[in-house]
């Protein structure tokens, strides 16, 4: 390491990216390029930062693998901040292995965390959970611990495990306080607020109520038969019967559940499920067929009994029936509720689940995207929609001092 590189690294650590740039602005050697890249990232010039970090990585010699790996990690973090997820996860994994082999555990952990957060952004919640659970955070810097806990909290929220999320948030806050990074603390507070916001509405025997996430979780644990209009399916405890691809059956189930413990008139069921007002015998025949299908699917959780005027839902055991709906009405609310699982949905899957046309859904998604309430990855046929991360991703956690060293 040389004198201006050391001075620039010192400036970066103290949060003075302009001071760092001043010292190495005109230099093109790899350590200088790396420092310039990090300074640019801290100034929010992500595209420029990426370019500089790439050039730095290329410039380091074969005997400077650690420095090169650090550049790869920093570049991956900048890409994450740009929400550019096209990079190869393999490159990042190789960098992590390189750093581990050289006992640079903090930066290796940093690399693995970026990988896990990338999976979350791509909607691979289960894979992210697996990646996070295999991390070795022993003795890690508190800022990285905070990021790891935030990611764990996000996974727990997506999987509707509020107690785990709450505990992770508490650890994240402790670590962020320890790290004394104000933006991290703000991020934890912001993300944690998801626990206190209304997450759904419940309708039980005609009574409507707003529920927080933990109340939703408690409802699922209560043994009640939940007709879940947020994620589209039937649930008792951990027993989940998805109906996202069967909108008609879901509409029937919901109509039956809203009337519980009473029954529902056939004509009303036809109106609700087939969206028609002109009833004829063919509708009645179709209703019989569809009720038969729903009966078969719901069999593990409930029976559907015929009554004199229609049908009635009878949950197995002596449990209540509760309908769960997005906290507010409307197509947008339904879309957001579906995306709350953190998975990547195609437009066609969303349209199918909501029983709307792709056009309608696309329009709603575009509006939501403009408001920053959904985001998309991929283009054209491979385009997928996701809810934005509950936990943001700060970019001031790059590896400034460490990068300066060969």
């Amino acid at each position, binding site marked *: *390491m040389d004198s201006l590189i050391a001075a620039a690294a010192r400036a970066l650590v103290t949060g003075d990216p302009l001071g760092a740039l001043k010292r190495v602005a005109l230099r093109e050697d790899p350590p200088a390029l790396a420092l310039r890249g990090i300074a640019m990232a801290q100034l929010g010039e992500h595209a420029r930062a990426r370019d500089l970090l790439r050039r730095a990585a290329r410039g380091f010699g074969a005997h*400077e693998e650690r420095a090169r790996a650090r550049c790869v990690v920093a570049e991956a973090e900048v890409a994450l901040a740009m929400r550019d997820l096209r990079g190869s996860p393999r490159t990042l994994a190789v960098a992590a292995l390189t750093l581990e082999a050289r006992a640079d555990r903090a930066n290796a952990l940093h690399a693995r965390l970026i990988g896990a957060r990338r999976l979350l952004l791509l909607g691979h919640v289960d894979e992210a959970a697996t990646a996070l659970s295999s991390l070795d955070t022993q003795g890690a810097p508190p800022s990285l611990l905070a990021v790891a806990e935030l990611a764990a909290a996000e996974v727990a929220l997506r999987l509707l495990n509020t107690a785990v999320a709450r505990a992770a948030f508490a650890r994240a806050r402790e670590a962020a306080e320890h790290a004394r990074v104000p933006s991290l603390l703000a991020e934890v507070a912001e993300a944690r607020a998801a626990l206190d916001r209304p997450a759904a509405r419940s309708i039980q025997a005609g009574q409507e109520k707003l529920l927080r996430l933990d109340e939703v979780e408690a409802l699922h644990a209560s043994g009640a038969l939940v007709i879940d209009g947020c994620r589209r399916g039937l649930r008792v405890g951990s027993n989940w019967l998805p109906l996202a691809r069967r909108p008609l059956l879901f509409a029937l189930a919901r109509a039956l559940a809203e009337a519980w413990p009473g029954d529902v008139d056939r004509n009303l069921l036809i109106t609700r499920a087939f969206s028609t007002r002109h009833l004829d015998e063919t509708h009645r025949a179709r209703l019989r067929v569809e009720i038969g299908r729903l009966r078969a699917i719901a069999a593990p959780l409930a029976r559907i009994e015929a009554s004199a005027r229609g049908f009635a839902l009878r949950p197995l055991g002596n449990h209540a029936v509760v309908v769960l709906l997005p906290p507010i009405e409307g197509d947008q609310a339904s879309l957001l509720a579906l995306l709350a699982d953190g998975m990547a949905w195609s437009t066609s899957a969303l349209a199918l689940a909501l029983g709307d046309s792709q056009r309608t859904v696309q329009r709603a998604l575009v509006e939501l995207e403009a408001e920053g309430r959904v985001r998309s990855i991929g283009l054209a046929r491979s385009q997928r929609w996701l809810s934005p991360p509950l936990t943001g991703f700060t970019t001031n956690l790059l590896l400034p001092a460490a990068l300066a*060293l060969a």
Partner: protein
Amino acid sequence: MNQSKAERIGKTPAAARVRAAEIVREYGPFAGIGAIHGVSHDGKRVWAATGSKLLAFDPESGRIARTLDRSGDAGTAFDGTHLYQIAEARIDKIDPATGDIVASIPAPGHGADSGMAWAEGSLWVGQYRERKIHQIDPETGAVLRTIESNRFVTGVTWVDGELWHGTWEGDASDIRRINPESGTVLERLEMPPGVGVSGMESDGAALFYCGGGPSGKVRAVRRPSGE
């Protein structure tokens, strides 16, 4: 100079003796100090440049004896009276008693400088990635001559007429004695993998004090006692 190319770029001849560096003692990391960039010895205490501070510690007790609020980003040297300290792209001449900067000259590498030693009325300044050592006039900063190495040069020191310098590239680091005329490597002490030398100075006797870069440590390494 009419040297062969191999000699000029400091290529290790077969005769160069290689052995493992013997680390006698470790100092630090010191409280609140991140990295060690430069090391010197004033006959009694070891001086270390740590970024925003220059500190002197007693090699016997390891205790910090003195701290100067002077920035130091690379090599440190001592001419018997004054400390010389590379900070950014200049070399400050510092009165160790008061901490005052009495003069400043430009560093020969324009900020790409690493180690520094004082000997024979000259300053010897390593230029890290350029793999060079410049002999400069301590009054003006004028480059008198340049020795080339084949490794990234970190610390530089003179002892008993021998020129030694540290190298650090990636994971590999060593301390080597070179022919000051030709740059030919005469002897090498290899540091353990992952242990680097960021700055060094002889104590004038049997030890080298070596900065450990971001480890924040200073290590005492035994100087081989002749052939």
